[in-house]
């Protein structure tokens, strides 16, 4: 199978993630969509590594995973904290700052 297909899949996943960010209200789900975008990138990296005949891309994918994990920790902490105050995890409810 042509590696290009993996790239297309990666692009598709990235788009799905981005659209998810736009359409979903729950902060956790929004966050998961972002994770999806990161993983789409991972797929690209690995594919490119394969295409280029290198390992660099695969190593980078590990870096991305670690960073994503850190992001999860911080993100969940923030979402938890606002959930505790507001008793809601809808991103649309956090709407005091505007204009």
């Amino acid at each position, binding site marked *: 199978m042509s590696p290009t297909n993996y790239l297309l899949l990666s692009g598709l996943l990235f788009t799905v993630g981005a659209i998810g960010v736009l359409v979903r209200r729950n902060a956790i789900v929004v966050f998961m969509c972002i994770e999806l975008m990161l993983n789409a990138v991972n797929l690209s990296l690995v594919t490119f590594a394969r295409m280029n005949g290198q390992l660099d891309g695969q190593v980078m994918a590990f870096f*991305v995973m670690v960073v994503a994990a850190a992001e999860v920790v911080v993100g969940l902490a923030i979402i938890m904290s606002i959930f505790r*105050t507001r008793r809601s995890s809808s991103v649309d409810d956090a709407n*005091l700052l505007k204009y």
Partner: protein
Amino acid sequence: MNALAQVAPLTAPPIDYAAIAPLLVVLGGACVSVLFEAFLPRHQRWPAQVALSVLVVAVAGIALGVYAGSAPVAGIVTLASALTVDGPTLFLWGTLLVLGFGSLLLIADRSVEPGGAFIASAVERASVAAAPGTTTGPTGVDPEHVDRSYGAPGEAPTMQTEVFPFVLFALGGMMAFVAANDLLTMFVALEVLSLPLYLVCGLARRRRLLSQEAAVKYFLLGAFASAFFLYGLALLYGYAGSVKLVAIATAAVGTPKSDALLFGGLALLVVGLLFKGSVGPFHTWTPDVYQGAPTPITAFMAACTKVAAFGALLRVLHVAFGSTHWEWRGVMWVVAIASMAIGAVLGLTQTDLKRMIAYSSVAHAGFLLLGVMAITREGVSSTLFYLLAYGFTTLGVFGVISLVRTADGEATHLSQWAGLAKRSPILAGVMTFLLLGLAGIPLTSGFTAKFAVFSAALGDGMAPLVVIALVFSAVAAFFYLRVIVLMYFSETPEDGPTVTVPGAFTTVAVTLGVVVTLLLGVAPTLVLGWAGAGGLTG
């Protein structure tokens, strides 16, 4: 054995410790700071953290100064070519350290807001409200919370000190960000600087809802933007086979691969950076976060994040994409104009001072882009100078904002500033001067910086853009002027805010902002020399 012998011996990449010492000191200090947070008794943490932070920044500064004195003009690439330490890096590091120092002073000040501006969570807030200064935990409150509350019996409430390691980590991330020689390092640094910022945004003692909302927005959008950055990185990797900036530059000159990868990657990468630099139309988080975050943190973000983002942008565009600037410059023109227009026009009708400064920051990002787009030495040096000048002025502005308060906290609504000059002429004078600096009036750093950036842009054939930028400068001047009009020409409202007598830390920070704004306006030669010393090494 044989097989083992055949494996080439691992040679650790050479590391120029002297060059990266400032970075190491800051990151190491951040780690120590975490340890302090974990092991020191509560009431000792504040003095210890403040001392540590100041020490870290000072030592890093000294290390930087020592190295800069003997640094090769061409710059070096070290740490397995992950970091570049060249003239701009050193300048940006210096800028970040000094601005970070100023921000830390604002953060550390407990006299303005009793107990400091930071608190960990809403529940604690509730406990404080229920029993301020009580000796033992009141019934119904989790003892753990009491333990983590405000210091020893009878003492003034201490502040939440997690903010110090966060800020130090962020600072370290920023320093790595601007020195990164490949995109992966840049990505990691981006996260290192971003994650602590997301957290500290939500730590405000007052107006918790706003603060947390700011944190959530910042986090979600920031993560969204880093996904773009990362996808750009992947595409560029696919194009060049490497994420090293130099390799990308080399590949751009001659490679059989599709340019779609190059430009798609460039676009997405730049979007991620523009987001951090709050350039319009990627600025949407800026007003909300500036307004919602605790003011000292806003100061830190406004000053340092901008430095870091534009430092990185400068490096990416100049080193990796300098040869293709004819292709991307048109698009960046549009972005720059959009940013200036959004900042200047939307700022006109803002009623909250912090939001207004946020829009001002968007407009300034547009002006900065002019310098970044000039692929010349003047382009680099003028952008560096602009970042320094803008950072100090903004720091001073937020320092002043933190001083004007009502019983309800900071008085950031514009109407509350009416007639301030009558009650506090010095503060109004300082604010006026800083605002004139932001507006770019001569004899302030803002003017020198604008002049430098615009002359670089004009020298690189962007005359129409310069004219547009100047027109938007005039538009933007209106909202700075509005504040001055309010302070000087309007009558004081009945229940106007009071002006807190600043503590030593805030005084130092604001004074720093004012003095630098003045000095860079009157005698910028020295700093201009530093900014122009050595180009980007790629």
